[in-house]
């Protein structure tokens, strides 16, 4: 692979979804490791994951196959390979052979063969292209196995083995190197803020030494939906918050986490944490981004190694709280709305009611999709899947579920609180020439503020 990484993986920031340009030649094996070194690296990472909680899950599967019925990839294709627990086969195999209570016998009699590099390579598509870690399988499993968590752990080994899909590896590497996966470097972000501030006549404080609230953004917003920056500023200014954006820590997406690199996940999270600590923030607001919520709200303190010295809220939670407290007033918006639950915020994050409270304050008629809330279908773009070009056909197939759900509501407006879902909807809309456009909850609020 060329050392000029940016030339090999040029960004495409003009399409309906942001990623690197479709590679002419794919590099789905990173580095120059031998097959043996790849499996050893994967095993070392896997072994690190085999604690009591993970072991309980890996020991509990009864091979009932019910998880398949919750998985959008199986439901849409009928291909049994997409059965969620099957996606974990090498991870399970490694556990049984190396760490389980009967590992000695498995090794002695070779009851479970050693995981091979070829096997891991074959599972790459199952662990990345066809899993958004949406957690529907966790919801259906009669044993209560958190399969989504296990897929995230299995990705850790895949990354160490250098077996990550080309595009996901490239954007993760760029995030680690530049601080943003999509070219939203501090210089680019600073320029955008200046431009947006002028264009919209809104004050956007940058690099304040002291602030009560630190605002983070998703690079998808910075590069594709910059209106979100303006909307955030309008809301925080209306609330007279002492807030800031900091160029030493603003990127909330975490492609370290999605690709499976634990160290990169930590590096990216620590930038935000350090920025919040530096300015003495009492509150860190996360943007409309699903996995950013998981990475910071739930994993942030664990990366930090102790409780975070500030509160972490998703922007929808912040809006709901501000409205409930009477600090933020909004006027009536569209007549009928349907809301798409981003998996990591709702099913995996618990912030399910907040956006509904905001929509209620906006006076809209909320027409829920069936199912919604916990049981909602994923948009198909989470877990880094939307970046992977070779996964497009499969992603469009599962997106058909979502289109039908939205159409069936008959709502006038489609709203969500995740920019990654939003770009997946935009891409699906363009592909299917669909007549529905995804809207941001935050922007809907900002457009209907009562000053």
């Amino acid at each position, binding site marked *: 692979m060329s050392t000029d990484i940016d030339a090999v993986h040029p960004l495409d920031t003009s399409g309906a979804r942001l990623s690197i340009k479709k590679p002419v030649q794919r590099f789905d094996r990173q580095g120059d490791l031998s097959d043996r070194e790849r499996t050893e690296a994967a095993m070392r990472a896997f072994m690190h994951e085999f604690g009591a909680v993970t072991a309980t899950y890996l020991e509990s599967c009864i091979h009932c196959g*019910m998880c398949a019925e919750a998985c959008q990839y199986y439901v849409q294709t009928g291909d*049994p390979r997409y059965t969620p627990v099957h996606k974990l086969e090498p991870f399970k195999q490694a556990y049984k052979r190396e760490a389980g209570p009967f590992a000695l016998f498995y090794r002695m009699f070779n009851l479970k063969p050693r995981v091979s590099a070829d096997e891991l390579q074959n599972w790459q598509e199952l662990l990345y292209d066809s899993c958004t870690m949406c957690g529907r399988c966790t919801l259906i499993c009669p044993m209560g196995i958190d399969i989504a968590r296990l897929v995230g752990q299995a990705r850790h080994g895949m990354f160490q083995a250098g077996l990550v899909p080309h595009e996901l590896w490239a954007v993760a590497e760029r995030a680690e190197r530049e601080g943003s996966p999509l070219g939203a470097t501090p210089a680019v972000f600073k320029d955008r803020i200046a431009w947006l501030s002028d264009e919209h006549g809104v004050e956007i404080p940058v690099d304040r030494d002291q602030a009560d609230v630190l605002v983070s953004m998703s690079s998808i917003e910075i590069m594709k939906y910059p209106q979100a920056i303006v909307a955030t500023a309008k809301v925080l200014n209306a609330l007279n918050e002492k807030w800031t954006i900091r160029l030493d820590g603003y990127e909330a997406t975490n492609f370290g986490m999605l690709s499976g690199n634990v160290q990169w996940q930590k590096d990216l999270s620590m930038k935000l944490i350090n920025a919040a600590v530096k300015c003495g923030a009492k509150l860190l607001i996360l943007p409309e981004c699903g996995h950013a919520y998981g990475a910071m709200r739930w994993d942030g303190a664990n990366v930090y190694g102790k409780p975070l010295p500030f509160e972490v809220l998703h922007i929808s939670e912040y809006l709901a709280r501000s409205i409930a407290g009477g600090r933020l007033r909004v006027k009536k918006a569209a007549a009928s709305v349907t809301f798409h639950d981003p998996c990591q915020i709702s099913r995996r994050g618990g912030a399910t009611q907040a956006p509904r409270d905001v929509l209620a304050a906006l006076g809209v008629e909320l027409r829920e999709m069936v199912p919604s809330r916990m049981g909602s279908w994923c948009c198909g773009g989470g877990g880094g899947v939307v970046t992977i070009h070779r996964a497009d056909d499969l992603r469009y197939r599962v997106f058909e579920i979502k289109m039908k759900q939205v159409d069936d509501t008959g709502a006038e407006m489609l709203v969500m609180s995740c920019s990654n879902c939003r770009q997946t909807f935009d891409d699906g809309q363009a592909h299917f020439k669909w007549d529905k456009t995804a809207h941001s909850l935050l922007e809907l609020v900002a457009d209907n503020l009562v000053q």
Partner: protein
Amino acid sequence: MNLLDFARGAAMKWSLAVFVFGIFWRLTGILLLHRTHDYSVPRAHGALLGALRTIIARSWPRREFRARTAYGLAVSYAFHIGLAIVVFGFVPHILLIRSLTGLGWNGLPDGVIYFCAVVTLIALIMALIRRVTHPVLKLLSNFDDYFSWVVTAAPVVTGLLTVAHYGARYETLLALHILSFEVLLVWFPFGKLMHGLLLPVARGQTGAFYARRGVNP
């Protein structure tokens, strides 16, 4: 020592020993692995309550999953409930349990037990047919699935043969029935039958995880 004496004596003793020691070995091998502390601020407290709720609530699927899982679930419930009735409702079984533990209760009429045993066997056969024909189950299944099926079905079959006095002398059939149950005891800690004990642990973990995050599954 004839076969029945062996089944009731040494075989019972050793199979129970393997059963108990095997369970202890497997559970400690799992539960004593490292645990990490979660420093995130929980949205809500009540992890224990959340664990208990999921342990109970996960016994039936959420509404959106019911249509797609109804058949498999019905078959599964049929043989689980059938087995429970036969194991804990048949008077000779209760007498055995009383001799081992001192605990006893009133049994069900023999006719009810026979009916349940037949239903159980039919459900087990349906489950096996589903396993060998359903593309997902075919892909997932391994030796453990099939052997666990055999050791579960064998005591039901031998039990029915014993009460019907069919195929051999009663004493031989009874010995085979007891021995088949002992094979189940020996296999229990090593295969998927352990799900009977792992179920509350796995469900409880996920229930606590959901409760911590304020997810209402």
